[in-house]
């Protein structure tokens, strides 16, 4: 891919980090757009409490279902709450669930992948068979059923999404470890008498983590989707909370009577954030996986 290069003089004038940004964006526009969307959402999520025009959970019975415009950019919902403020506040909820969930997935999956890939043997065999067996359950339904069974608290939602993500991280890391296990630097680390945990976490992990990093964006997208789906079904997060899925649930009943703004706007925000994460993940996979890069040439 060769775009029109910036004139050398102008390019030299840019600070180094901006030159990197331009370089990466040119190699993968998908990644750049995805990252830009996410940065916007992250900034909005952080400053939302100060910039929202109205309190996102303040009901106003005298101003129910006002159409968009005027004091309410996106109208008001069935409780008279300001939809725009609620959509902004929803970004925080989405990040607040997705980030811890992915961290749980990494915290469980990466060590499992390291250990099974390095040690092999029956433990590896059993864990991989269990992961294979889990694949026969459709992921959305599995997440919903397990959350319902474990009790639909916010803590359980995060935990279940994270645990169901962990096989993905374990697989990616395990595959990398299998390729690295017999390389010279690992053999010399063993010969130098390093304990196993040190070989795994200090020597192998930094070389095996790339694939998992690319996956984490895709898994975060999944986490945002699943948590919103749970809220849409009314399992877990409940109505007045400014969470996008819960807001779409509220909006569902008004769509067929014409008050589209209650459900449409949170859906658009949800799409944009998931799209941003998916684009970031797609771009990262392209950049990090030399095989995929070669195939797309």
């Amino acid at each position, binding site marked *: 891919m060769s775009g029109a290069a910036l004139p050398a003089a102008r390019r030299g004038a840019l600070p180094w980090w901006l030159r990197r940004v331009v370089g990466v964006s040119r190699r993968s526009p998908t990644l750049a757009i995805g990252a830009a969307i996410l940065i916007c959402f992250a900034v909005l999520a952080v400053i939302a409490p100060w910039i929202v025009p109205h309190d996102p959970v303040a009901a106003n019975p005298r101003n129910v279902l006002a159409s968009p415009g005027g004091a309410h950019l996106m109208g008001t919902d069935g409780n008279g709450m300001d939809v725009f403020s609620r959509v902004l506040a929803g970004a925080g909820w989405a990040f607040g669930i997705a980030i811890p969930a992915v961290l749980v997935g990494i915290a469980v999956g990466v060590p499992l992948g390291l250990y099974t890939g390095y040690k092999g043997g029956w433990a590896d065999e059993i864990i991989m068979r269990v992961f294979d*067996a889990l694949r026969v*359950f459709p992921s959305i339904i599995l997440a919903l059923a397990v959350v319902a069974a474990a009790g639909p608290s916010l803590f359980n939602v995060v935990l279940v999404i994270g645990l169901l993500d962990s096989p993905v991280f374990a697989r990616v890391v395990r595959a990398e470890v299998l390729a690295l296990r017999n390389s010279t630097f690992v053999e010399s680390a063993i010969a130098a008498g390093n304990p196993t945990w040190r070989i795994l976490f200090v020597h192998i992990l930094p070389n095996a983590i790339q694939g998992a990093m690319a996956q984490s964006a895709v898994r975060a997208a999944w986490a945002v989707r699943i948590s919103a*789906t749970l809220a849409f079904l009314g399992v877990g997060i409940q109505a007045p909370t400014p969470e996008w899925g819960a807001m*779409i649930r509220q909006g569902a009943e008004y769509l067929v009577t014409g008050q589209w703004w209650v459900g*449409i706007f949170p859906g658009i925000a949800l799409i944009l954030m998931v799209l941003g994460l998916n684009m970031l993940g797609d771009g990262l996979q392209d950049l990090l996986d030399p095989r995929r890069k070669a195939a797309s040439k």
Partner: protein
Amino acid sequence: MPVGLLIARRVLLVVPLLAAILLFTFLLVRIGGQDPVGLLAGPTATQAEIEMIRSQLALDQPIWVQFGVYFGRVLQGDLGSSWLSNRPVLTDLLERAPATFELMFWGVLIGAGIGIPLGLRAAFRPDGPFDQTTRFLSLLGFSIPTYWLGLVMLFVFFFLLEWTPPGMGRLSLFLEPPPFVTGSYLIDGLLAAQWEVASSALSQLVLPVLCVAIISAAPIIKQTRAIALEVLSSDYIRYARAQGLPQGEVRRMALRNSATPVVTFVGTEITGLVGTTALIEYVFAWGGMGQYGLSAIIQNDFAAIQGYVLVLALFSVLVFLAVDIFVMLTEPRAGARA
């Protein structure tokens, strides 16, 4: 190894998998640490019902005996009773299965019909404008919440344009379902020459099928493109090109060699679509297994949840099995490697 033996071995591998699935659904009602009897019996159960379920589950025995009892009951087709419908879960699920299959069948058919040509066309000119556009559309398809798409469809085509009936089931309330042949109201209505039924079924099908098709097309586009790219960059295609074969001829060769992996992928994709279909069923009040399962999850009907999850897993096992056998029959090399 001859193909027949390979297939037999593959079928045998299903047995331990089934045991693992049953173990999982068995544990499902126990992971919350709540009393499984209370969960399965539901809030409306009388003392006598609770006692009956308690003795059925053999809860006074060690946990592996309980699992054995559960295993035996499932083998006899007893998935317990739903406290919501007050009927055996298996009966409930079987009754709703045709609705789900009708939706999935048309959805995947149209999704593949859209996705495969787009993916192939994108692969013929990688990184071209067409490829970039379809790549974005596919990412968008990955990102749209299924239920939101359904709601927007209803808003646009039912409320604004008034082209379609409201999303309330598979058939107008004033019509009787056609006599059962295939389970699809559309096909059965046509077979019975009940044109009014068939056209009502069709108009009810359009929106939900469109939703399933859009959501299922996204991964199909992505995967078809990847498969076709790999084939197109293979040695024999380069050889064919070097020989000076016309473009159309080369592409036809690539198509033939992409066919098996694409069909395999679409097959496995069906299992992933079960969740999508369930949400669409929920939005359109479709009355299929998916709506039943989601309602069970929402209202804590655990016998139904357990049965629904089990039936979905069995469905996936069957699909994976069929796909693997298909590959073994069409590509003996792949089978020998497995």
